Protein backbone atom coordinates (compact mmCIF):
# COMPACT_ATOMS: atom_id res chain seq x y z
CA UNK A 1 0.00 0.00 0.00
CA UNK A 2 1.51 3.28 -1.07
CA UNK A 3 2.07 5.80 1.69
CA UNK A 4 0.55 9.13 0.72
CA UNK A 5 2.84 12.14 0.71
CA UNK A 6 2.29 15.08 3.04
CA UNK A 7 1.09 17.14 0.09
CA UNK A 8 -1.48 14.50 -0.88
CA UNK A 9 -2.70 14.27 2.71
CA UNK A 10 -3.01 18.02 2.89
CA UNK A 11 -5.11 18.12 -0.28
CA UNK A 12 -7.34 15.45 1.29
CA UNK A 13 -7.66 17.58 4.43
CA UNK A 14 -8.82 20.40 2.18
CA UNK A 15 -11.65 18.13 1.04
CA UNK A 16 -12.68 17.52 4.65
CA UNK A 17 -10.85 14.24 5.32
CA UNK A 18 -10.49 13.92 9.10
CA UNK A 19 -8.23 10.89 8.93
CA UNK A 20 -5.84 12.71 6.65
CA UNK A 21 -5.66 15.51 9.21
CA UNK A 22 -4.88 12.98 11.95
CA UNK A 23 -2.04 11.59 9.82
CA UNK A 24 -0.62 15.07 9.29
CA UNK A 25 -0.67 15.72 13.04
CA UNK A 26 1.07 12.45 13.89
CA UNK A 27 3.77 12.98 11.28
CA UNK A 28 4.62 16.57 12.16
CA UNK A 29 3.82 17.10 15.81
CA UNK A 30 7.31 16.08 17.00
CA UNK A 31 9.33 18.80 15.32
CA UNK A 32 6.55 21.37 15.79
CA UNK A 33 6.74 20.61 19.50
CA UNK A 34 10.57 20.87 19.57
CA UNK A 35 10.51 24.27 17.90
CA UNK A 36 7.66 25.64 19.99
CA UNK A 37 9.02 24.36 23.29
CA UNK A 38 12.54 25.65 22.78
CA UNK A 39 11.28 28.99 21.47
CA UNK A 40 8.70 29.65 24.18
CA UNK A 41 10.30 27.83 27.06
CA UNK A 42 7.27 26.51 28.83
CA UNK A 43 5.12 23.45 28.27
CA UNK A 44 1.63 24.96 28.41
CA UNK A 45 2.22 27.77 25.95
CA UNK A 46 4.13 25.43 23.66
CA UNK A 47 1.16 23.02 23.60
CA UNK A 48 -1.19 25.89 22.79
CA UNK A 49 1.08 27.08 20.00
CA UNK A 50 1.39 23.64 18.43
CA UNK A 51 -2.37 23.14 18.59
CA UNK A 52 -2.95 26.60 17.11
CA UNK A 53 -0.52 25.83 14.30
CA UNK A 54 -2.34 22.66 13.30
CA UNK A 55 -5.76 24.29 13.50
CA UNK A 56 -4.58 27.15 11.32
CA UNK A 57 -3.25 24.57 8.91
CA UNK A 58 -6.70 22.99 8.89
CA UNK A 59 -8.41 26.33 8.30
CA UNK A 60 -6.10 27.05 5.35
CA UNK A 61 -6.42 23.55 3.88
CA UNK A 62 -9.18 24.38 1.35
CA UNK A 63 -6.85 27.01 -0.16
CA UNK A 64 -3.67 24.85 0.02
CA UNK A 65 -1.72 24.37 -3.19
CA UNK A 66 1.45 22.22 -3.11
CA UNK A 67 3.76 24.84 -4.61
CA UNK A 68 6.41 24.17 -1.95
CA UNK A 69 7.10 21.21 0.34
CA UNK A 70 4.53 20.77 3.07
CA UNK A 71 7.19 20.95 5.79
CA UNK A 72 8.31 24.37 4.55
CA UNK A 73 4.69 25.51 4.33
CA UNK A 74 3.97 24.37 7.87
CA UNK A 75 7.19 25.87 9.21
CA UNK A 76 5.97 29.25 8.01
CA UNK A 77 2.85 28.92 10.14
CA UNK A 78 4.88 27.84 13.17
CA UNK A 79 7.40 30.66 12.72
CA UNK A 80 4.71 33.28 12.44
CA UNK A 81 3.00 32.02 15.58
CA UNK A 82 6.29 32.01 17.48
CA UNK A 83 7.01 35.62 16.54
CA UNK A 84 3.41 36.67 17.23
CA UNK A 85 3.74 35.10 20.65
CA UNK A 86 6.62 37.46 21.40
CA UNK A 87 4.83 40.46 19.95
CA UNK A 88 1.92 39.87 22.27
CA UNK A 89 4.46 40.63 24.99
CA UNK A 90 4.58 37.28 26.57
CA UNK A 91 8.11 37.36 27.90
CA UNK A 92 10.00 34.13 27.98
CA UNK A 93 11.13 33.29 31.42
CA UNK A 94 14.57 31.76 31.44
CA UNK A 95 13.54 30.01 34.63
CA UNK A 96 11.09 27.96 32.58
CA UNK A 97 14.02 26.36 30.88
CA UNK A 98 14.96 24.70 34.12
CA UNK A 99 11.53 23.14 34.52
CA UNK A 100 11.78 20.05 32.46
CA UNK A 101 13.26 17.08 34.22
CA UNK A 102 14.25 14.84 31.38
CA UNK A 103 17.83 15.47 30.36
CA UNK A 104 18.31 12.39 28.18
CA UNK A 105 21.80 10.88 28.45
CA UNK A 106 24.21 12.34 25.94
CA UNK A 107 25.52 10.13 23.16
CA UNK A 108 28.91 8.56 23.76
CA UNK A 109 31.83 10.78 22.91
CA UNK A 110 30.00 14.08 23.44
CA UNK A 111 31.77 15.78 26.29
CA UNK A 112 29.42 18.54 27.35
CA UNK A 113 28.64 19.50 30.89
CA UNK A 114 25.06 19.95 32.00
CA UNK A 115 26.03 23.38 33.23
CA UNK A 116 27.10 24.43 29.75
CA UNK A 117 23.91 23.03 28.26
CA UNK A 118 21.80 24.95 30.77
CA UNK A 119 23.78 28.11 30.07
CA UNK A 120 23.19 27.76 26.34
CA UNK A 121 19.48 27.16 26.87
CA UNK A 122 19.18 30.28 29.02
CA UNK A 123 21.08 32.25 26.42
CA UNK A 124 18.76 31.06 23.64
CA UNK A 125 15.83 32.44 25.60
CA UNK A 126 17.52 35.84 25.73
CA UNK A 127 18.38 36.10 22.03
CA UNK A 128 16.43 38.62 19.90
CA UNK A 129 13.34 36.84 18.48
CA UNK A 130 14.59 36.54 14.89
CA UNK A 131 17.99 35.18 15.93
CA UNK A 132 16.35 32.79 18.36
CA UNK A 133 13.96 31.51 15.73
CA UNK A 134 16.72 31.02 13.14
CA UNK A 135 18.89 29.09 15.60
CA UNK A 136 15.97 26.93 16.73
CA UNK A 137 14.78 26.15 13.21
CA UNK A 138 18.33 25.20 12.25
CA UNK A 139 19.34 23.06 15.22
CA UNK A 140 16.04 21.85 16.66
CA UNK A 141 13.99 21.68 13.49
CA UNK A 142 16.93 20.70 11.24
CA UNK A 143 15.84 23.05 8.48
CA UNK A 144 18.18 24.08 5.71
CA UNK A 145 19.14 27.72 5.23
CA UNK A 146 16.74 27.98 2.30
CA UNK A 147 13.87 26.47 4.28
CA UNK A 148 14.53 28.85 7.16
CA UNK A 149 14.52 31.78 4.73
CA UNK A 150 11.09 30.72 3.43
CA UNK A 151 9.75 30.09 6.92
CA UNK A 152 10.88 33.50 8.13
CA UNK A 153 9.99 35.27 4.87
CA UNK A 154 13.51 36.57 4.39
CA UNK A 155 16.62 35.88 2.31
CA UNK A 156 19.24 33.18 2.68
CA UNK A 157 21.89 35.83 3.33
CA UNK A 158 19.80 37.26 6.13
CA UNK A 159 19.47 33.79 7.64
CA UNK A 160 23.25 33.33 7.52
CA UNK A 161 23.71 36.62 9.35
CA UNK A 162 21.07 35.74 11.94
CA UNK A 163 22.69 32.36 12.58
CA UNK A 164 26.17 33.85 12.78
CA UNK A 165 25.09 36.47 15.33
CA UNK A 166 23.05 33.96 17.28
CA UNK A 167 25.94 31.50 17.49
CA UNK A 168 28.33 34.28 18.44
CA UNK A 169 26.10 35.26 21.36
CA UNK A 170 25.65 31.64 22.40
CA UNK A 171 29.36 30.94 22.00
CA UNK A 172 30.18 33.62 24.56
CA UNK A 173 28.41 31.54 27.19
CA UNK A 174 30.93 28.79 26.56
CA UNK A 175 33.84 31.20 26.86
CA UNK A 176 32.73 32.52 30.27
Amino acid at each position, binding site marked *: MRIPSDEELMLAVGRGDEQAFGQIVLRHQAYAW*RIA*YRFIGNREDA*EDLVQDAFLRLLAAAPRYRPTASFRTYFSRIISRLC*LDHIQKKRPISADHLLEFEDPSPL*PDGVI*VSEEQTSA*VRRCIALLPPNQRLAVILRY*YGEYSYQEIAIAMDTTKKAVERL*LARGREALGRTLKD
Partner: protein
Amino acid sequence: MTYDRLHNKLNAYVDHKLSAKLMEEVALHLRTCEDCRKELARIEKLVSILKEDAIPDVPPDLAVRIVAHGRRQLSGRIAHPRRWLVPHIYTWDSMPGYVRAAAAVVLIVGLTVGTLLGLSVSHEGNDQNVTIATQESDPVAVFNLDYFSDTPSGSLTQIYAALSTPQNGVGR
Protein backbone atom coordinates in the same frame (compact mmCIF):
# COMPACT_ATOMS: atom_id res chain seq x y z
CA MET B 1 42.18 35.93 1.74
CA THR B 2 42.73 38.13 4.77
CA TYR B 3 42.73 36.74 8.28
CA ASP B 4 39.48 38.56 9.18
CA ARG B 5 37.67 37.19 6.16
CA LEU B 6 38.83 33.67 6.92
CA HIS B 7 37.81 34.04 10.56
CA ASN B 8 34.35 35.19 9.47
CA LYS B 9 33.99 32.12 7.29
CA LEU B 10 34.31 29.68 10.19
CA ASN B 11 30.57 29.52 10.86
CA ALA B 12 29.84 28.73 7.22
CA TYR B 13 32.75 26.26 7.24
CA VAL B 14 31.16 24.33 10.09
CA ASP B 15 27.88 24.21 8.19
CA HIS B 16 29.65 23.20 4.93
CA LYS B 17 28.12 26.20 3.23
CA LEU B 18 31.28 27.40 1.46
CA SER B 19 32.36 26.60 -2.07
CA ALA B 20 34.83 23.75 -2.45
CA LYS B 21 37.64 26.22 -3.08
CA LEU B 22 36.86 28.24 0.05
CA MET B 23 36.50 25.10 2.16
CA GLU B 24 39.98 24.13 1.10
CA GLU B 25 41.34 27.60 1.79
CA VAL B 26 39.90 27.63 5.31
CA ALA B 27 41.13 24.10 5.97
CA LEU B 28 44.66 25.12 4.94
CA HIS B 29 44.52 28.18 7.17
CA LEU B 30 43.38 26.12 10.14
CA ARG B 31 46.51 24.01 9.93
CA THR B 32 48.62 27.01 10.83
CA CYS B 33 46.37 29.23 12.95
CA GLU B 34 45.83 28.17 16.54
CA ASP B 35 43.36 30.99 17.29
CA CYS B 36 41.09 29.95 14.47
CA ARG B 37 41.36 26.29 15.50
CA LYS B 38 40.23 27.23 19.01
CA GLU B 39 37.38 29.31 17.59
CA LEU B 40 36.36 26.41 15.33
CA ALA B 41 36.38 24.03 18.28
CA ARG B 42 34.15 26.42 20.21
CA ILE B 43 31.68 26.67 17.34
CA GLU B 44 31.62 22.89 16.90
CA LYS B 45 31.02 22.41 20.61
CA LEU B 46 28.14 24.88 20.50
CA VAL B 47 26.61 23.13 17.51
CA SER B 48 26.98 19.83 19.31
CA ILE B 49 25.21 21.20 22.41
CA LEU B 50 22.37 22.55 20.30
CA LYS B 51 21.91 19.36 18.34
CA GLU B 52 22.04 17.11 21.38
CA ASP B 53 19.95 19.30 23.66
CA ALA B 54 17.21 17.20 25.16
CA ILE B 55 13.63 18.35 24.74
CA PRO B 56 10.80 16.81 26.77
CA ASP B 57 8.77 14.29 24.81
CA VAL B 58 5.68 15.44 23.01
CA PRO B 59 2.75 15.34 25.48
CA PRO B 60 1.10 11.97 24.79
CA ASP B 61 -2.42 13.34 24.47
CA LEU B 62 -1.51 16.37 22.34
CA ALA B 63 -2.32 14.71 19.01
CA VAL B 64 -5.63 13.44 20.36
CA ARG B 65 -6.65 16.91 21.52
CA ILE B 66 -5.60 18.51 18.26
CA VAL B 67 -7.52 15.99 16.18
CA ALA B 68 -10.62 16.41 18.38
CA HIS B 69 -10.49 20.18 17.89
CA GLY B 70 -9.94 19.62 14.19
CA ARG B 71 -12.95 17.35 14.00
CA ARG B 72 -15.15 20.04 15.56
CA GLN B 73 -13.72 22.62 13.18
CA LEU B 74 -14.38 20.36 10.17
CA SER B 75 -17.91 19.64 11.39
CA GLY B 76 -18.53 23.32 11.63
CA ARG B 77 -17.34 23.74 8.07
CA ILE B 78 -19.51 20.92 6.76
CA ALA B 79 -22.63 21.97 8.68
CA HIS B 80 -22.28 25.59 7.65
CA PRO B 81 -20.42 25.56 4.37
CA ARG B 82 -21.19 29.21 3.70
CA ARG B 83 -19.10 30.23 6.66
CA TRP B 84 -16.04 29.14 4.72
CA LEU B 85 -17.01 31.33 1.79
CA VAL B 86 -16.87 34.43 3.96
CA PRO B 87 -13.46 35.95 3.75
CA HIS B 88 -11.53 35.71 6.97
CA ILE B 89 -11.64 39.11 8.56
CA TYR B 90 -8.47 39.68 10.45
CA THR B 91 -8.75 41.49 13.73
CA TRP B 92 -6.13 44.08 14.44
CA ASP B 93 -4.55 41.88 17.12
CA SER B 94 -4.18 38.90 14.83
CA MET B 95 -2.30 40.84 12.18
CA PRO B 96 1.44 40.49 12.09
CA GLY B 97 3.34 43.55 13.23
CA TYR B 98 4.60 44.48 9.78
CA VAL B 99 1.02 44.43 8.41
CA ARG B 100 -0.15 46.74 11.18
CA ALA B 101 2.77 49.09 10.54
CA ALA B 102 1.99 49.16 6.81
CA ALA B 103 -1.69 49.86 7.48
CA ALA B 104 -0.77 52.72 9.82
CA VAL B 105 1.59 54.23 7.23
CA VAL B 106 -1.07 54.03 4.49
CA LEU B 107 -3.60 55.69 6.79
CA ILE B 108 -1.23 58.51 7.72
CA VAL B 109 -0.14 59.11 4.12
CA GLY B 110 -3.76 59.07 2.93
CA LEU B 111 -4.87 61.55 5.58
CA THR B 112 -1.89 63.81 4.85
CA VAL B 113 -2.47 63.83 1.11
CA GLY B 114 -6.17 64.43 1.59
CA THR B 115 -5.53 67.29 3.97
CA LEU B 116 -3.01 68.92 1.66
CA LEU B 117 -5.32 68.62 -1.32
CA GLY B 118 -8.13 70.11 0.68
CA LEU B 119 -5.95 73.00 1.78
CA SER B 120 -4.79 73.78 -1.78
CA VAL B 121 -8.37 73.86 -3.07
CA SER B 122 -9.34 76.07 -0.19
CA HIS B 123 -6.48 78.50 -0.96
CA GLU B 124 -7.46 78.70 -4.62
CA GLY B 125 -10.95 79.62 -3.55
CA ASN B 126 -9.61 82.30 -1.25
CA ASP B 127 -7.38 83.69 -3.99
CA GLN B 128 -10.36 84.01 -6.27
CA ASN B 129 -12.23 85.80 -3.53
CA VAL B 130 -9.30 88.18 -3.04
CA THR B 131 -9.08 88.84 -6.78
CA ILE B 132 -12.77 89.58 -7.02
CA ALA B 133 -12.64 91.77 -3.92
CA THR B 134 -9.62 93.65 -5.30
CA GLN B 135 -11.36 94.30 -8.56
CA GLU B 136 -14.42 95.61 -6.83
CA SER B 137 -12.47 98.06 -4.68
CA ASP B 138 -10.20 99.30 -7.49
CA PRO B 139 -11.82 102.37 -9.11
CA VAL B 140 -9.53 102.24 -12.13
CA ALA B 141 -10.41 98.66 -12.87
CA VAL B 142 -13.53 99.73 -14.66
CA PHE B 143 -11.30 101.11 -17.46
CA ASN B 144 -9.21 97.96 -17.88
CA LEU B 145 -10.79 96.75 -21.10
CA ASP B 146 -12.71 99.77 -22.28
CA TYR B 147 -10.12 102.25 -23.49
CA PHE B 148 -12.43 104.10 -25.86
CA SER B 149 -15.30 105.07 -23.65
CA ASP B 150 -15.51 108.52 -22.08
CA THR B 151 -14.04 108.93 -18.64
CA PRO B 152 -16.62 109.53 -15.95
CA SER B 153 -17.30 113.19 -15.23
CA GLY B 154 -15.19 114.52 -12.35
CA SER B 155 -12.92 111.54 -12.36
CA LEU B 156 -9.21 111.85 -11.80
CA THR B 157 -8.58 110.67 -15.31
CA GLN B 158 -10.69 113.43 -16.80
CA ILE B 159 -8.89 116.06 -14.71
CA TYR B 160 -5.48 114.75 -15.73
CA ALA B 161 -6.51 114.66 -19.36
CA ALA B 162 -7.74 118.25 -19.09
CA LEU B 163 -4.51 119.49 -17.51
CA SER B 164 -2.26 117.76 -19.98
CA THR B 165 -4.11 118.99 -23.08
CA PRO B 166 -3.03 122.47 -24.31
CA GLN B 167 -5.73 125.09 -24.87
CA ASN B 168 -5.19 125.24 -28.62
CA GLY B 169 -5.74 121.45 -28.68
CA VAL B 170 -2.51 120.98 -30.59
CA GLY B 171 -0.02 120.54 -27.78
CA ARG B 172 2.70 122.70 -26.36
